């Protein structure tokens, strides 16, 4: 199914619900592996729903159809000196990034991506169009259905349109790289104010600074006091230098989330990871099933979760979602026929 309009989505889902045809909602396929194994009879591609609906830079909001690629959105916003700081693969769709509950590498500074979603148009499993939120930067008007759809892995409906908050691209950005570990990364994150990100790999710490020109000099000096070997990277280099989607295709990558102070003890001796100090997110390579089991054991012991974001492994079952009955009722309300990727999300239908 390749809907071109919201009406097409409505029709496709009504039809699918009637015939109990199980549907997998697909955007840019960059997060397709996230979620538990789910059998589907058909795919619904959102990629032709790719239009800009409204953009007024002065509002610091952009409204787009969900199938728009992140690259296209970045290009549009950059013309006006703004960005949606998703730090997602360029081929990912805006809706896919939201539905998969993806996180930004600069979460320390820009906040959780879920908080940037202020309005949504969602088509439920049985083909009802539901709007929630508003095109304003703050809003307490009724229940935020869009918060439930964010991270729902396409199991509550098809996201067809969103309004997201955007921010000015900082006057200057600089990445410093230094040999070091999570201990150093944590020290930098707590000592250097307003740092955009401190990302630790097993042997290098990348420090991302963003702000006003003079401010960057001031912050870089603070970083060097803690890490005298910190050297600036080419300003054209992406941050992070090697995001998870550029890693070798070898086994599973998990996106672990745990209290930040537990990152160090949890990741010690692991061969490949990128961890966000003071945030508690880590992308970790698990080449074999045994590796995956071991990593999940550690993360869960630290009170975290470790869903696979690429490769086999699903969400991991050791940490059940809270309030299972609420999950079941929500699922039934928004997808009465149970056709949207049954079993993919944490709680089965």
């Amino acid at each position: 199914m390749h809907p071109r309009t919201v009406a097409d989505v409505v029709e496709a889902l009504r039809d699918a619900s009637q015939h109990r045809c199980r549907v997998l909602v697909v955007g840019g396929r960059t997060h397709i592996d996230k979620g538990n194994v789910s059998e589907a009879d058909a795919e619904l591609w959102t990629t032709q729903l790719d239009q800009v609906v409204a953009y007024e830079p002065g509002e610091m909001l952009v409204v787009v159809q969900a199938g728009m690629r992140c690259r296209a959105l970045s290009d549009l916003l950059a013309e006006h000196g703004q960005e949606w700081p998703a730090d997602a693969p360029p081929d990912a769709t805006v809706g896919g990034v939201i539905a998969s509950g993806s996180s930004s590498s600069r979460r320390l500074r820009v906040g959780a991506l879920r908080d940037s979603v202020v309005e949504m148009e969602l088509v439920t499993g049985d083909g009802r169009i539901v709007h929630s939120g508003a095109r304003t930067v703050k809003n307490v008007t009724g229940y935020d259905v869009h918060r439930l759809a964010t991270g729902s892995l396409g199991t509550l409906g098809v996201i067809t349109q969103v309004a997201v908050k955007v921010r000015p691209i900082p006057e200057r950005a600089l990445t410093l790289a230094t040999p070091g570990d999570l201990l150093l990364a944590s020290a930098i994150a707590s000592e250097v104010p307003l740092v955009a990100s401190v990302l630790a790999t097993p042997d290098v710490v990348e420090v991302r600074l963003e702000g006003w020109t003079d401010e960057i000099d001031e912050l870089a000096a603070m970083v060097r006091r803690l890490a005298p070997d910190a050297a600036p990277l080419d300003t054209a280099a992406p941050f992070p230098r090697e995001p998870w989607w550029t890693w070798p295709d070898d086994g599973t990558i998990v996106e672990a989330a745990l209290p930040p102070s537990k990152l160090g003890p949890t990741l010690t001796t692991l061969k490949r990871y990128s961890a966000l100090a003071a945030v508690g997110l880590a992308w970790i390579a698990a080449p074999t099933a045994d590796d995956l089991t071991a990593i999940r054991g550690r993360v869960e012991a630290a009170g975290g979760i470790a869903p696979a974001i690429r490769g086999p492994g699903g969400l991991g079952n050791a940490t059940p979602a809270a309030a299972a009955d609420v999950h079941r009722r929500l699922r039934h309300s928004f997808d009465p026929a149970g056709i949207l990727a049954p079993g993919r999300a944490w709680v089965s239908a």
Partner: protein
Amino acid sequence: MHPRPNDSLQPMADVDAARRELEAALGSGAVLTDPLALRLYARDASMVEGECAIVALPTTTEQVQACVSIAAAHDLPIVPRGSGTGLAGGATPIGDSLVVVTARMTGIVEVRPEDRLAWVEPGVPNLDLTNHLRPMGFTFAPDPSSQQTSSIGGNVSTNAGGPHCLAYGVTSAHVLALDVVMPDGSLERLGAEGPEAAGYDLRGVVVGSEGTLGVVTRVCVRIVPTPPAVRTMLFGFDTVEACAATVTSIIARGVVPAAVEMMDQGIVRAVERFARAGYPVDAAAVLLVEVDGTEAGVAAQTREVEMAAGDNGVSSVRVAADDEERALLWKGRKSAFGAIAQIAPHYHLHDCVVPRTKLVDVMRGVYAIAERHGLIVTNVFHAGDGNLHPLFSFDRSVPGTLERVLQASDEVVRLCVDAGGALSGEHGIGLEKRDFMPLVFSAEDLNAQACVRASFDPDGRMNPQKVLPDGARCGEFAVAATGTGEATPDAAGLPEGSWI
């Protein structure tokens, strides 16, 4: 006393039975049924007057669970309440309800700077938490103007904002996890101490749900380092238009200030008499701007903000030289609602949000509405977020005044909605605005919201009649869950004067 659907099955005596069970569970000092107490807890800071049967003041999560279970056993609706500073009637009880007050749960359980979080009980006043964190170099960013009194639990239930949410985000961006006593009496932890949790984001939907999905008994808040430098500026303008245009210019220069607050002449004059903050009383409007960051970052932002003000013909500029002056400038803004008591004995405050670029049009519209109805209106608002707080001052005892205020209020809401805005930026819907919900949502949208609510609370026990208007129904789910076709009780008539 209004009828509930199963009144005929539930004799009045159940209130007495419930009271006895509550006294056994909480102790007699924590259960109030005397007429004075019932009267006190019959309203919040809105002007909606309600009624209740029992007031419970639990001090532990277990006691809250007992309250919820006992209420369920006796079919009493539950109305959660914090400090009662809500302005939309969200904590105003209706009928034979049990008010569960969390104000005695005031423990700051633990602060973990290494994890950038703190666990607090819901009754902790917002400002107490801020003061507790300050010596550690951290802050809890949401700072509603009521922060001396309003509690963290109340902030969670209304997804509270405040002046600093422009740069830092509203309450939901600062809540990692919640311990919630669910409507069936079970205890669930929604969210996690880490940045993401398993399952749908139930935490996100409970924040801002105005006590309709459960009772929050513990909150894991995100704490952020206090910025090393801050600067506060006050600009006076000869026209409201120039003042509002400056907000747009600041944003266009790539500055996202920590706060941008706008006050018109009426409110500035009232504040000056009250706070003596040195605001320019001749200006048509003033803009209070705060930037924070590193020393160099603050200097750069200050320069840009001053240029933006200059481009729009600013008539007076004052930059706070020290913390004392900064506190004085903020005193002016934060005492606005105290100050307006001098204008007239009663006020009605609005809380609409509009797109930032529509501020001037909407303000002009608000002035025109006030003039048409012969009312005094002053404006103080979070200009950076497009969150207006037009405030009608009046004397209720003058015949016909209340009716005019009601009519004007209705027109203000419609004006904001027509400008592409939302009904509430930070106060919530409660009782006051629920009947406006169809202005911004379709029947299908509202039914979906009813489904969210019914998924948490199939029996419709939590804070009934709030947020959603009559007629919002979760058809699909109700049939599946109860077999009776009705998930929420029919809303009966609201108490008289529930509008203001």
